């Protein structure tokens, strides 16, 4: 049984159809990356899974239990097993609480009164390689990288089975970014964590994700193992994203595929293939609506796939 099973998830805010049927599964211990431009709905997907954003239609099952639209009384105990790492590391920490209170708050929320909170705080700080002196500090005294690690510590406090991580390395310096990714990789191996990770840094995806899904306008347009997607991208949008990754080499003359303009408004979804107007490879057939087709573990929504 999959740990997380998302089927045809739909979210609308009034007339704005943010998610138009997103489906994917995450197995225990697996890392799944969601990739796409701003506004493609990545954050809404994981917020909807965690019950923090509405989802009017579709299904989200966690360990076989349907949780879409579940009331707080159902979600709260589940959050022991499903933790969220928010995008803004400092903004996600209450400025009025010490690091100790922040990372032990999950125990209080879950009513685990038998725990020695000081000992837990120490254990968690050590786990994320922060000195125990940090326990008495406040969020404003932390650097961005340290705040991230506090976010990781808090997400891991209850030893969840699944972490939902929204841009976990955004805003970090490259020398620190590696540290955080190594930490996540290491914890994943030791604790058997599964992760859904959102990022638009494709270089990061290559190193952390087992499988990945590419989102465009609230839909998956391609999905597969990380290797498959990097080595054999079939959707023109995926190809464009991969080619838009500037390489730290002045002589790397990439075969860059220019992506025209910006994503269209969700209020005026294009007819046929929604990527058609920006697609450098669009054909006549693309005025028809592409369906999701699966070949082995490689899913694709394109009528004129690249080979």
């Amino acid at each position, binding site marked *: 049984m999959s740990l997380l099973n998302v089927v045809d998830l739909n979210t609308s805010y009034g007339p704005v159809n943010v998610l138009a049927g997103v489906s994917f599964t995450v197995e225990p211990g697996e890392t799944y990356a969601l990739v796409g431009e701003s506004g493609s709905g990545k954050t809404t997907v994981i917020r909807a899974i965690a019950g923090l954003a509405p989802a009017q239609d579709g299904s989200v099952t966690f360990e076989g239990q349907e949780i879409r639209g579940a009331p707080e009384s159902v979600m709260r105990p589940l959050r022991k097993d499903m933790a969220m790492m928010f995008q803004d590391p400092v903004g996600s920490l209450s400025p009025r609480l010490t690091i100790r209170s922040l990372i032990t708050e999950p125990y209080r929320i879950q009513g685990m009164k038998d725990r020695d909170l000081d000992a837990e705080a120490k254990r968690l700080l050590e786990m994320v390689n922060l000195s125990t002196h940090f326990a008495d500090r406040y969020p404003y005294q932390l650097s961005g990288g340290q705040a991230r690690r506090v976010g990781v510590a808090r997400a891991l406090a209850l030893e969840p089975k699944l972490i939902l991580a929204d841009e976990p390395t955004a805003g970090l310096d490259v020398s620190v970014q590696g540290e955080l990714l190594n930490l996540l990789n290491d914890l994943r191996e030791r604790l058997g964590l599964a992760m859904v990770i959102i990022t638009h840094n494709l270089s990061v995806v290559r190193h952390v994700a087992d499988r990945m899904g590419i989102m465009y306008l609230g839909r998956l347009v391609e999905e597969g193992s990380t290797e498959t997607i990097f080595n054999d991208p079939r959707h023109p949008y995926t190809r464009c994203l991969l080619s838009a990754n*500037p390489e730290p080499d002045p002589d790397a003359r990439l075969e860059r595929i220019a992506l025209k303009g910006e994503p269209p408004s969700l209020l005026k979804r294009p007819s046929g293939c929604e990527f058609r107007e920006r697609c450098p490879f669009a054909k006549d057939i693309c005025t028809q609506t592409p369906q999701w087709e699966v070949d082995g573990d490689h899913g694709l929504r394109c009528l004129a796939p690249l080979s």
Partner: protein
Amino acid sequence: MTDTLLEIDHLSVDYETGRGDLKALRDITFNVNKGEIVGIVGESGCGKSTLISSILRLTAPNTRFREGEVRFKGQDLLKASERQMRDLRGADISIVFQDPMQTHNPVLTIGQQMLDIQHRSKQSKVDKLTHAAKMLGAVGIPDPEARLKQYPHEFSGGMRQRIAIAMALMSEPDLLIADEPTTALDATLEVQIIERLQELQREFHCAILFISHHLGVIAELCDRVVVMYAGAVVESGDVREIFHNPKHPYTRRLIECDPGHIKERARVLPTIPGEVPDLANLPGGCIFRDRCDQAMTRCATEVPPLDQLKEGHHAACWLNHEEVTS
């Protein structure tokens, strides 16, 4: 003799704080030539922002210029009057900031803001609006005349950053300072902005001082690179020299850390362990010593000078100093 536009000459800048003087910039030296794109790379706390605000003289009240000069077309800006600085800013030197969502005034139309920044021009309002529309067109905003009537919130992040670039280039400055202009944008938009900057640079022939921590962007856009660490220049040189033949251990490690560099999936990514030293309480010797895996005894006591290794390639490291002297 090349055409030097901006010369940063042994610049040292402190911030006076309750804990003593924080030595934010120490002995910074580099040039920007006319029409050249120079990249400044460095991580948080390396002094990039202090450097920009020093060039524009838009510094916090507790800033002290300890030593050195910032010469623009031969004139020392640190000695210029406030009046002279006002005439330079936005006319000869302009800047594009990091966050496109906060650069524009939310309650004025883009057209009004583009009119306002032409306050020096004697042209009629109609001519100014025509010029504004032409600049919006130049940065790839479709239907510019109609767009001038819109407010910032009606544009996407990528468009707002392109508008900021259009505004910065309106007065045809000699120097454009771009402070992490793509950091807040998606990779696809980042590429669009870089390509647009390259095109505009060819069209307007302005020099660009491009600040970024994204090595890929620097490699793609810049002619020369200055690498900063904890308030000092540790290496500078031609972009190919820096990326293919880095001489300072920090530069080398920084390039190694970039996950874009590693094509095969790595279980453990390289990092630079340790933290940037406290600039209010500077350790003696080389500033990178504590994090350097090649540190020697000498590194603990003496600050390495920025040696010229070959024409246009400088590095501040005792390892290379031996090479130079022997």
